[in-house]
């Protein structure tokens, strides 16, 4: 989307044009939903966070500083909304602090052939507290001190949660890699069962 087009959309939204609001929503849906899906436990939660985030975007458009990138502004709102969404129910304190998170990545996971959906499914299976810290640390690039400030937890708790998140993700990756993959694995199983089944029915027909 061009800058001029974006400015027009923003102006339309400021005038409560439902058409422009929808266009803006559609234009940033993929980007915003990508963030929300990472922070949410499932797609429904993600959609809820997304809409709450967009609601804030519409409500605060008049405060948007045009000198800053609009996408970054929307992304920040989505991230904050997601954190706020989980912050209400998250029990950060129940996790033990650790002095230092251990580096558990000895395997070369960067070479894993995991696609977006698989990675997303894994991160969504993490408990909220682990997932939020992992998102903030691994994907957004915040430090533990910053995460601690952001979530109202200690840096130690942040480290602990990150460590446990990685541990769980590692187990999920290993489990996924051990399973036969539909595109590369042995898919003769169902075919051979079908062949035997057809053969049996032919034999039964022949006998009777």
């Amino acid at each position, binding site marked *: 989307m061009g800058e001029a087009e974006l400015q027009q959309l923003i102006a339309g939204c400021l005038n409560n044009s*439902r058409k422009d609001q929808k266009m803006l929503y559609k234009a940033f849906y*993929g980007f915003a939903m990508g963030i929300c899906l990472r922070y949410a436990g499932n797609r429904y939660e993600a*959609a809820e966070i997304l809409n709450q985030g967009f*609601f*804030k975007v519409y*409500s605060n458009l008049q405060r948007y500083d045009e000198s800053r990138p609009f996408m970054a502004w929307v992304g920040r709102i989505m991230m904050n909304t997601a954190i706020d969404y989980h*912050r209400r129910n998250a029990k950060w304190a129940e996790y033990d602090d650790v002095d230092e998170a251990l*580096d558990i990545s000895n395997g070369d996971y960067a070479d894993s052939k995991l696609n977006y959906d698989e990675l997303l499914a894994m991160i969504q299976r993490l408990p909220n507290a682990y997932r939020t810290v992992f998102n903030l640390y691994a994907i957004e690039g915040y430090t533990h001190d910053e995460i601690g400030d952001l979530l109202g937890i200690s840096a130690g708790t942040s480290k602990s949660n990150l460590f446990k998140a990685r541990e769980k*993700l590692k187990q999920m*990756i290993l489990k996924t890699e051990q399973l036969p993959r539909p595109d590369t694995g042995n898919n003769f199983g169902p075919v051979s069962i079908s062949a035997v089944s057809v053969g049996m029915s032919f034999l039964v027909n022949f006998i009777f």
Partner: protein
Amino acid sequence: MKRLNENKIDKLFKDGLSGPKEEVSFNEADWVAMEKMLDKKSGKNTVLFRLMYYTSGIAALLLLAYALFWLPQKKDEDKRRPRVAKNQEIKKQHNGQSEQPGKVLAMELAASNHNIGRVEKVPVAASKSFFSLSAVRNGRYVAKNDSGQSLANSPSNDTAVNLLASGSVQSQIDSGIVMANQSLVDSGQLLEKPEQPLPVKAPKLKTNNGFKPVLSLAIVGAPDVNGVSSLNGAKAGANLGIQLSVQLLPKLSVTSGIAYAVKRYSASAGQYESSYKSSTPVTYIDANCKVLDVPLNVNYQLYKKGNNALQLGTGLSSYWMLRENYEFEYANNAPSFYINVANQNRHLLGVLNFNATYQRQLGHGINALVQPYYKVPLTGIGNGRVNLRSAGVAFGVGINMNQLFRKPK
């Protein structure tokens, strides 16, 4: 923010999940849910109108109650009118029967008799000493009994009319027993025990020294300033509302009402309570809150002379936080963070009010008021539980309901 040692699991997820996602296709159902949220937002504006609607309803009910309060008093006055009308009918009947000159003569005798009462002409421009029924009925004469007590102040003049118009007196006159009539009047029996079937209820005397509660309704608008902990660096706000006052005692009144207030203020990070901690230091928080303020104040009249009056008041206000918008400004030009809260905080009797009211009567029951005020919270206000103080001057126009409903003279 960037770390040198990037974990491989972190990298795997960062590369796979960050950035724009083509995989996430637009879902129309999400937009439908979004539209519902937006419709709800626009519906929030109707909450205010609904509140105003209910407020006007309450005001109308109060007016109605007040009108009903006045109605019995008016009825007392009206009660006499139909009775007079009845008497007129009776009189007509009697007139129809009393064409004989003897009766008129007897009436004159009876009326002019000093034992019945000394007849005084109240308005000087009245008819002569001829004591006619119509003269009494029209209230132009005040009959005084021997004790000197005014019969006209009580409705005894009516009683006299009743008696005269009734068959009792008439029959006595008819029979020519004037002396008997005199003795009856002298003893007061005639007034107390009329033989007439018409009920003569002793009406309540209206005492002028009895205090009546005064009800006033005022529309006020107030520019004010709002600040946290103190009014240094306070920001301007505005209020619009109605005030309803009931003067319970000559110098004491109670005021309530409802006002829609826009409160804008700035707070430092320390003044705003939040578990939301930012890595980047918050320089300040800009707040814009829409509040419904329902005060309950007691006022003491300090001074009143002529059309001017001065009152001092204090009391408590309840705040309903309709909408709260907070903008967190960070150092280093970091993007602002916003919190929007709607209808989540209310503070029942949580704000202490101090005010002084100068009132000036403009005539016809209308008065102008100027009311400097100061509001100090007893509890933390809003989402950030801030010590939000307000000071302003309310300007308004009020209506004295008592004068509005006063019977025409």
